């Protein structure tokens, strides 16, 4: 691997942090909802879309980010937010609906917004794509070399917003990288049942921009492809469309029976868990020993636990604070 060791270690550590965060959110989400599942009950009420398995799509861009770069993510946003370095304590607090959260408890896990780093996400499919285009317009107008990354699922590639955004970015040669996280299912609908062609990256040719398919759920492959696309955007050569084949290890939302994916599919998916595969590879190539990986886990687990503790120790907002912040 022709990648600086520090980047490999950083990607691995971030994958561990993401996975641990999702595991802990999952545990605490269910802790007080069982045995009879009540979506409105508990420490974390509401829908919860977790990204275990999709870590590579998030960490691969991380070493190429500059301060001020904008990211828009999806309804399944935690992995990307963590990879960009969004404050983990405030993010956890928002998920737990606390006053100290990124949005003081008003947004929840699908509506995480941060000014620094420059992150936003949305519960509406494809909604963040035009926003990334506008961020890129602002960067150009202000004379910065920042770029915008727009994450979306393969299900979003059939939205009008996908086509409108890529057309605008290509037309105006804006510094945007569009990243399709193809986890093969839009809730229960497989890609083949929704999309007229196998690979959304091929749709780039309709807009005259590079389209690249990353067919492995592998942080190293993502690192290389994203590095080239981000450099290209930063140079002023315009947008790219990247599609990454990834895996959503768990259901669409927590509580999803996930009966639409076959047991064979799920078994194969779990056998190629990217965190396990990447860890083994780093060990085999002498980059991180098993002991070093354990040490990383210990450290990252502590970081996640501190964020959870911060959230749980934080007060809930006063109910009447509901009325605040409609307007600036």
């Amino acid at each position: 691997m022709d990648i600086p060791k520090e980047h490999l270690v950083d990607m691995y550590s971030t994958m561990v942090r993401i996975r641990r965060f999702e595991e802990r959110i999952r545990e605490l989400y269910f802790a007080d909802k069982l045995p009879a599942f009540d979506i409105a009950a508990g420490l974390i009420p509401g829908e919860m879309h977790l990204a275990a398995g999709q870590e590579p799509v998030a960490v691969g861009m991380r070493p190429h980010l500059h301060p001020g770069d904008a990211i828009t993510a999806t309804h399944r946003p935690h992995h990307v937010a963590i990879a960009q370095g969004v404050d983990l304590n405030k993010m956890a607090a928002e998920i737990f609906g606390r006053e100290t959260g990124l949005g003081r408890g008003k947004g929840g896990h699908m509506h995480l917004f941060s000014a620094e780093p420059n992150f936003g996400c949305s519960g509406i499919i494809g909604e963040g794509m035009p926003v990334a285009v506008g961020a890129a317009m602002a960067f150009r107008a202000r004379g910065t070399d920042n770029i915008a990354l727009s994450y979306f699922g393969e299900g979003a590639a059939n939205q009008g917003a996908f086509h409108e955004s890529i057309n605008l970015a290509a037309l105006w040669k804006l510094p945007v990288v569009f990243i399709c996280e193809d986890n093969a299912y839009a809730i229960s609908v497989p890609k083949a049942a929704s999309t007229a062609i196998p690979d959304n990256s091929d749709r780039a040719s309709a807009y005259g921009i590079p389209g690249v398919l990353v067919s492995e759920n592998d942080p190293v492959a993502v690192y290389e492809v994203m590095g080239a696309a981000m450099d290209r955007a930063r140079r002023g050569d315009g947008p790219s469309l990247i599609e990454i084949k990834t895996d959503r290890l768990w259901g669409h939302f927590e509580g999803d029976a996930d009966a639409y994916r076959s047991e064979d599919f799920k078994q194969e998916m779990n056998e190629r868990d990217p965190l396990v595969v990447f860890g083994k590879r780093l060990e085999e190539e002498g980059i991180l020993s098993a002991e070093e990986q354990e040490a990383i886990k210990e450290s990252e687990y502590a970081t996640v636990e501190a964020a959870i503790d911060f959230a749980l120790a934080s007060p809930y907002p006063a109910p009447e604070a509901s009325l605040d912040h409609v307007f600036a």
Partner: protein
Amino acid sequence: MTTMTDRKLTMQKAIAEGISQEMATDPSVFVMGEDVGVYGGIFGSTEGLLDKYGPERIIDTPISETGFIGAAVGAAINGMRPVVELMFVDFFGVCMDQIYNNMAKIHYFSGGNIKVPAVLMTAVGGGYSDAGQHSQTLWGMFAHLPGMKVVVPSSAYDAKGLMISAIRDDNPVVYMFHKGALGLGWMVNNPRATGPVPEEAYEVPIGKARVAREGSDVTIVTLGLSVHKALDAAETLEAQGISAEVIDLRSLVPLDREAVISSVQKTHRLLVVDEDYQSFGMSGEIITTAVQGAFDYLDAPPVRVTTPDIPIPYSHGLETWALPSVERIVSAAAGLVSG
């Protein structure tokens, strides 16, 4: 403070001048939309701006409202102050997600940490047989959805001052101009569309109604082109011995409820004129405001002159019948006072 002036502009030119003056002093302001460049805006809202500021700041977009209105949101979050034009408000249907789910909610979702200082400028209103997809006002719908200010100027003076306030505002502002109030040579011959406008930049505060005409017998609350019709009606009513006060709301969000209440306390009678659809909208909200705030002062149940709950019809006679007219206002006000 603004200086007195004899210079008169149409509302259309006043809008363009307001944008231009903000662009001259604030490099973060830019305009985008369909035909805002060489055409100068289908309704002239950006007339002359391309020559002054060039294509980097006066940006013609493809017909792609979700894309470019969403881009305005992204630019606003990232340090710019976009003025984005939705050519006709009726076109909201192809881009409303970006408007009400995104532009209007990000500040709230972020707990006040992210501001979205965008102006969504759009043409509203009928009266020229453009039929049911190019004639609506829809301000009640935008006002119903939390997170957007909604302004509707009726005079050239207010058009410039409200545009400047809207651009300087840190919130999303939906700026609706009525096509019939613009003073366009090819639209509706409307002498009230032209008025004195100071040369310098000035603000008209958003959320403050204006007493367009003082009176003592009946309060007519309205906005947009209907202000002009109400003023015409007030002249007819005066000849009949009825003194009508006309309140121009100027904005729906925030709504100057106090102006409605204090006028009703004075006249004891309320007529609401609204070119928007009748049910579940502005007229009901104004009447509720008066009933809750001035119940003991009312001498008669409030009355409304609105567009009935029908798509705006095409044929001239149908449309003229459906939209609020001077005659309907006169008749309703006279009935309210005599009844």
